[in-house]
């Protein structure tokens, strides 16, 4: 630094962001300063490099299959490694259906829990409940899978599935033989795994609802629930939707637990009690067994499809959350 530079006070004491940063960068000194700056920039750019790298490597790994099958890959339901014919449809179907089941279970429960935590629960009860939900988020996928195989699936097979077939068997969704490992089991375990993120993001959204909203509703004589419905939910609707989409993004890519309970059969069945297969789990199961180049390329293409779907869903979720939550979005969850 060459003496005190005459920086106007407005630039030294900004309320936030850009002004402060530009003043700081201009005031840098010798080579240690510059190299530190460049090093930091390099690290930050790693993020962009990684995104490009991920997309490029998956594309490079799947070129053979893309060339061989073209767009037909996405709509063909034949998956036959023996005769080297590959189609992604059963896996895309399985991924979408299991994620949809998970959302149907997790969104109402997660949003209701978030509402409970921000609007209803006694203050003393809130922190313990939040802690428990955060710890639930810390349980690794493979442990949920283990628990799924030995506890959840046998219970579902002997109780819930029997009940569903007996009372709702008139729907094609709950017909056919009961195996245990099934699309529904996969959906349920994914629901458990995305509950924490949906709950915590919804909670942040709800906390950003101004108290004025609530007070206005109370002043009109609304009950507790009416206040929540009129003042809170309608105000936060967009953000809550964003939380659900973020949960969808996580559900689509969930691998280990699903692989362990979904049954791993590449078939498209109307029944949720039948086994299914997802994009992520077929890669996990068959990658090291891929004997031919085309087989490996087809698996890479499944990865590419999965990446494309999750990136799209995540971009939508982040856009929805950002415009609402003043630019913070949903960070490291």
């Amino acid at each position, binding site marked *: 630094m060459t003496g005190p530079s005459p920086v106007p006070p407005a630039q030294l004491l900004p309320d936030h962001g850009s002004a402060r940063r530009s003043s*700081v960068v201009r005031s840098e000194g010798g080579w240690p300063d510059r190299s530190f*700056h460049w090093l*930091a920039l390099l*690290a930050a750019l790693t993020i962009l490099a990684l995104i490009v790298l991920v997309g490029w490597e998956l594309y490079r790994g799947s070129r053979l299959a893309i060339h061989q099958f073209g767009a037909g890959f996405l709509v063909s339901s034949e998956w036959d490694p023996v005769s080297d014919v590959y189609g992604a449809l059963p896996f895309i179907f399985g991924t979408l259906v299991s994620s949809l089941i998970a959302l149907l279970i997790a969104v109402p429960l997660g949003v209701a829990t978030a509402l409970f935590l921000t609007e209803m629960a006694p203050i003393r009860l809130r922190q313990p409940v939040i802690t428990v939900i955060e710890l639930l988020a810390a349980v690794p996928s493979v442990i949920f899978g283990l628990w799924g195989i030995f506890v959840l699936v046998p219970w579902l097979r002997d109780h819930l599935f029997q009940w569903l077939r007996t009372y709702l068997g008139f729907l094609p969704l709950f017909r056919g033989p009961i195996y245990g490992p099934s699309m529904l089991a996969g959906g349920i375990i994914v629901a458990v795994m995305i509950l924490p993120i949906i709950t915590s993001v919804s909670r942040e959204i709800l906390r950003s609802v101004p108290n004025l909203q609530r007070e206005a509703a109370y002043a009109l004589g609304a009950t507790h629930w*009416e206040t929540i419905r009129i003042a809170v939910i309608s105000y936060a609707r967009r953000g809550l939707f964003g939380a659900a989409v973020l949960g969808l993004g996580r559900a689509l890519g969930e*691998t280990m637990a699903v692989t362990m309970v979904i049954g791993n059969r590449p078939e498209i069945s109307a029944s949720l009690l039948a086994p299914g297969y997802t994009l992520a789990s077929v*890669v996990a199961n068959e990658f090291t067994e891929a004997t031919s180049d085309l087989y490996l390329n087809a698996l890479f293409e499944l990865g590419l499809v999965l990446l494309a779907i999750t990136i799209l869903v995540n971009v939508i*979720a*982040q856009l929805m959350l950002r415009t609402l939550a003043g630019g913070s979005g949903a960070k490291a969850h």
Partner: protein
Amino acid sequence: MELAAQLSPGGGRQHWRRGLSRGVAVLMGLSALIVMTPLFLVLYFLIRQGASSLDWNFFTQLPKPAGEPGGGMANAIVGTLELLGMAAAIGVPTGVMGGIYLAEYGSATANYWLRFAADVLNGVPSIVWGMVVYALLVVPFKTFSAYAGGAALGLMMVPLVMRTTEEVLVLVPQSYREAGLALGIARWKIITVIVVKTALKGIVTGVLIALARVAGETAPLLFTALGNNFWNHNLGEPIAALPLQIFAYAISPYDDWHRQAWAGALVLMLLILACNLTVRFFSRERR
């Protein structure tokens, strides 16, 4: 019922509205209970099924061949720690420096998009990281290796550490930086000695959270670290990891392996809980 409520005179309608409100409150409380239940169920079964198998052998022995009872997961426990060490070596410097850039340098617009990219990158499925590192490090060197496993976990850590680091750096009062500038201290020294040091606890917290998250990852290791039934003496060769071992044992047909899978899961869970509790301890002190 809605109609009846509408038609009835004021008092009855009030009653119905209050009742509905109370009913919804109960439903919300119930959902919170349902959301919490899986954690308790998982922990209960981990302890019930796993605790009895945790003995000296489990921590000191190598896995036995299929069908033979006994043996342990010593190599997998050490392997997981080695993988985490390598992941930290990649993820922590990159993530922390990136976080410094976001908090201290860069224009608001560029940083907005970098943050956006980091959050999107966070949503990339872990299995995809495994495939990418397979193409990058396994194919060229023609072998699965501990390096590849560590790299896969390390790359996953980068966006996580970056975002948490930035968040705590922004909390450091602006006046600290100004005081440094006024004293004529070089910018990089202000950042490392004053800003980062002030926020160090928060940064460590973020790193621990990221480590706890990748410690349980299985999918990125399946075709990078691969797993190994013996000790790994060379990081250029496949290495065992707890999550991989749990997965392999869980889907095997042997009862004794199932028993050990539970025990391994209990150890992994304790490791992760320890990380989380340390974080809680740190962040409580910070406030």
